[in-house]
């Protein structure tokens, strides 16, 4: 139960966000499902009590999911990624930072601000890991394909040797 409700709320939030950014049809459902999966993974790694690592694993899961879904739906991966990342965006962190700033608690303000910054970094690192791996893989595949096409033509050896 403590897993189901947060995931369900993030799903609803993502659906609502899709309405704002003009994403329609089945893509809306898939993208929102990504948000729920991301938060589920975040909660799954909760036993580690290290939220930066949790955020990174969640963003790895979400971006892997988004890459797969983008390939299946033949759409840019951005659409899935932006919507699915929404529950992970450190809104609470920003709010707390602001509250410490208003109440004049400077040391807490700085540490909360830096922590929020760290969360953004962890999320970006997760996305980067997955998208770079996928790009590397497709580049290797393309190069191999080009080499195969090249060798099947049976070019004469260079310089007539």
């Amino acid at each position, binding site marked *: 139960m403590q897993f189901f*409700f947060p995931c369900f709320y993030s799903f609803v939030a993502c659906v*609502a966000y899709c*309405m704002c950014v003009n994403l329609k049809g089945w893509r809306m459902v898939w993208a929102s499902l990504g948000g729920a999966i991301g938060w589920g993974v975040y909660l799954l790694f909760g036993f580690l009590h290290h939220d930066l690592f949790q955020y990174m694993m969640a963003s790895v899961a979400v971006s892997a999911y988004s890459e797969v879904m983008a390939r299946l739906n033949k759409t840019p991966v951005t659409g899935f990624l932006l919507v699915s990342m929404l529950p992970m*965006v450190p809104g609470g962190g920003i*709010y707390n*930072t602001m509250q410490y700033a208003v109440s004049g608690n400077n040391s807490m303000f700085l540490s909360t601000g830096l922590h929020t910054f760290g969360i953004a970094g962890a999320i970006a690192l997760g996305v980067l890991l997955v998208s770079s791996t996928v790009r590397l893989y497709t580049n290797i595949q393309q190069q191999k394909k080009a080499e195969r096409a090249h060798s099947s033509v049976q070019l004469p050896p260079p310089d007539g040797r």
Partner: protein
Amino acid sequence: MDYNELVSVCLEIGRLLVKNGAEIYRAEESMHRLFAAYGVEESHIFALTTCINVSICQPDGVPITRICRVEGRCIDLGKIDRINDLCRRACRSAPPLDDLQQKVMAIDRAPGSPRSLQAVGFAGVAFAFTLFFGGTAADAAVGALTGLLVYWLQSVFVKYRANSFFSTILESAGIGVICLGAAHFFPNLSADRMIIGSVMNLVPGIAITSFMRDILSADYLSGMLRFVESLLVAMAIALGVGAIMVLSKALWGV
């Protein structure tokens, strides 16, 4: 082949991609591919979140350079999707430029989601995030109300082209007034959760996550631009809500 027209059509495609919130590398790569599909061997593109520079070399060696300012940025994933699709088809078949131009214009002019749906979306984001951050159903209902208010304010400000920093301050101040007022009159509501949930509509979530992505993928300049943007928005939210919080402390001593 009219290279001038080719450059302007491709620039328009790039501008629409950046304007509607696509990543920098997507805009650059789409334009590179389009130029290659129309037989331009040398093309140099430098895109930022606010500006695109293109320079191509015609077959007779005369270069064409264009600069395009990107204004009125928003996020419209549906449009990115359609432009990407158009771009992919154009790269495969290289249709006549007039044709392409017309399709691009049609996408640019296409209306987004209907207004009622967008309003429901704003209310829904605030509603769901209030629950997500641990609020009760009553908190969430107030959150939905602030979502509607934010949507209304935003549409008014966009219509009269208000400064975005200024409008974010006023929107977050509106959130602060509703949430703190509700928490004052109904003490069983929790103001913190309502505010966190409602502010999610304004939080520069896209900017925060994508500035890191731009920097890590070596688009340093765009990354810094987005970083400054997200910092400014966060500051505007803090100013708006913070001012109301200080005021309510003075008035009610909460």
